[in-house]
């Protein structure tokens, strides 16, 4: 990177086209090299993981650089059934799917009310949401354990879902708040004059207008919930109810040499591939959404 910097510094006020052109190209080449190096650093471990997922445990332990002698899809079967990744995958889809729908609906409703209605306590609620966003979950984890226990929700999927919803809510509300605030009031008035009640006004008029914001938040929330690790590890210790992230961790930490390494790599691929493929297809929209959330 320093070479780029040094070289770039030379291109000062390059009005004489010939020299500037050459140096500009030099900068571009250096930039390409730096970026290629970083891309390789990102992608090589992933390719190695993919290759290893087709190897036998002996091959993996024997020579890490070798290619698989043949494509052992059996590793995937082992990961899916024996290691329980299939069950974890299903649990994750249920938990993340339900939590995502719930938090989007509840969050949009709450943000809408906070953004467009004045009432006593509005500010207090808004700032307590902000506080809920700032404090680390670790501060709440022990009392949360007992709250769930008292409700009989500990180690259950519904318990996990409602906790996911609760902790994703502040971000959702906070982000959508500004969206609903910016919507034109005239449309709401028109709906009211046309006889729509508050429910109709929200679901048929206001919510559809907030769709771009909803999409961004939904993507953020999906990735956040899909990655969630602490909440399930602390609150969902029944191995039948494991979600992928904690199932992966427990699979990897299974005592010593008994680990089926081929299946472990296959499990990693199973976990990573779906989201990665979706990302590659929708990368433009996704990056736009993500930057919309981050740059503001």
């Amino acid at each position, binding site marked *: 990177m320093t070479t780029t910097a040094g070289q770039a510094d030379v291109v000062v006020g390059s009005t004489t086209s010939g020299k500037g052109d050459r140096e500009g190209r030099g900068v571009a080449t250096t930039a390409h090299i730096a970026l290629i190096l970083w891309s390789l650093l990102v992608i090589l471990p992933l390719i190695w993981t993919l290759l290893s997922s087709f190897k036998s445990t002996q091959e993996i332990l024997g020579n890490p650089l070798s290619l698989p002698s043949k494509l052992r899809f059996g590793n995937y079967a082992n990961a899916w059934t024996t290691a329980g990744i299939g069950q974890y995958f299903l649990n994750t889809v249920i938990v993340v799917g339900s939590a995502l729908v719930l938090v989007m609906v509840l969050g949009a409703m*709450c943000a809408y009310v906070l953004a467009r209605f004045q009432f006593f306590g509005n500010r207090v609620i808004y700032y307590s949401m902000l506080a809920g966003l700032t404090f680390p979950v*670790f501060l709440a984890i*022990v009392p949360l354990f007992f709250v769930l226990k008292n409700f009989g929700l500990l180690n259950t999927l519904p318990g996990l879902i409602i906790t996911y919803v609760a902790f994703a809510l502040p971000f959702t509300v906070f982000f959508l708040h500004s969206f609903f605030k910016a919507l034109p009031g005239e449309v709401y008035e028109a709906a009211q004059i046309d006889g729509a009640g508050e429910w109709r006004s929200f679901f048929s008029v206001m919510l559809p207008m907030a769709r771009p914001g909803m999409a961004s938040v939904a993507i953020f929330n999906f990735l956040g919930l899909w*990655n969630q690790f602490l909440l399930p590890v*602390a609150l969902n210790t029944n191995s039948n109810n494991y979600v992928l*992230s*904690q199932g992966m961790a427990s699979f990897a930490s299974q005592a010593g040499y008994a680990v089926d390494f081929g299946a472990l790599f296959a499990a990693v691929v199973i976990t990573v591939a779906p989201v990665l493929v979706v990302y590659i297809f929708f990368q433009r929209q996704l990056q736009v959404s993500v930057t919309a959330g981050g740059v503001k």
Partner: protein
Amino acid sequence: MTTTQDVVPGDGPKRSVTRRRRPLTFDRVSFMVVFLGLPLAIFLIFVISPFVQALYYSLTDWSGFSSGMNFVGFDNYVKLFHDDIFLRAVRNNVELAIVVPLVTIVLSLTLATLVTVGGSGTGTVRGLRNSGYYRIVSFFPYVIPAIVIGLIWAQVFTPGSGILDAVLSKIGLSQFANYAWLGDARTAMPASMFVMIWGGVGFYMVLFIAAIRGIDPEVFEAARIDGAGRFRTAIFLTVPLIRDNVQTAYIYLGIAALDAFVYMQALNPGGGPQNSTLVMPQQLFTTAFTKGQFGYSTAMGVILAAVTMLFALLVFLVNRLTGGSERKVKVRR
């Protein structure tokens, strides 16, 4: 703000007075109960109440499953300040919060700059051609769960079967043929930091690219005409113009580094050789869910929260004192 209990659609002063008092129809009442009451109830029960309870529990000797819970004042905190293992964890977290954000931001800013102004040509400042691929690939780690990133790298670092040692010995560095990167107290922490940085750069690179593209191109033109080179432009023009984004990134990354639980659980679940990678959240988790010392562990949580707040405040202050704008930072998880 009105102080009445009535629900009034608030949209500025132009709203007519007649609208201020609306009949409390079933539609309106049910709307408020469901739209505000339901989310708020969930939020209060599962987020706010645990936070408040934690403050109280941290002042007790509660060990969870036993019924006794005595108020012990600040004993837990005093004990924490003499707990060598916890203090080691605090130190590790602080190290992480200094190194990880700094390196991640420098690296992602550099890459973002290369993508946006690295293009050849002398006239206008152009972005690098075909840089879309780099952006897509660099962003990969963001869509991979942190626990999986940790597990992949734990395999990469494994002596014997890991690819890192194999590559290093292949290119002649045979002293690394069987080197345990995560098992040696000297390298465990740097290796863990590297993994966290690897996981963060892509996201911030994309963020900074968007921020740099948001700058008026005429600013770059002017700098170019005035004879500023690309390097000088990047340091003295780009960075000050996107300093709010940098501040936001610094806070997010710092908060993530003060947590670091997921990465460390994946790389060295036990805290690493001689506790060299032990972080506060790990120690909190073990104290609570393995040892059952709930009062003591919530005190750790309070310290963790305090350190997090302190860090955010520090970043704000530094940015302010060095002439940053007063714009508020949006907090994202």
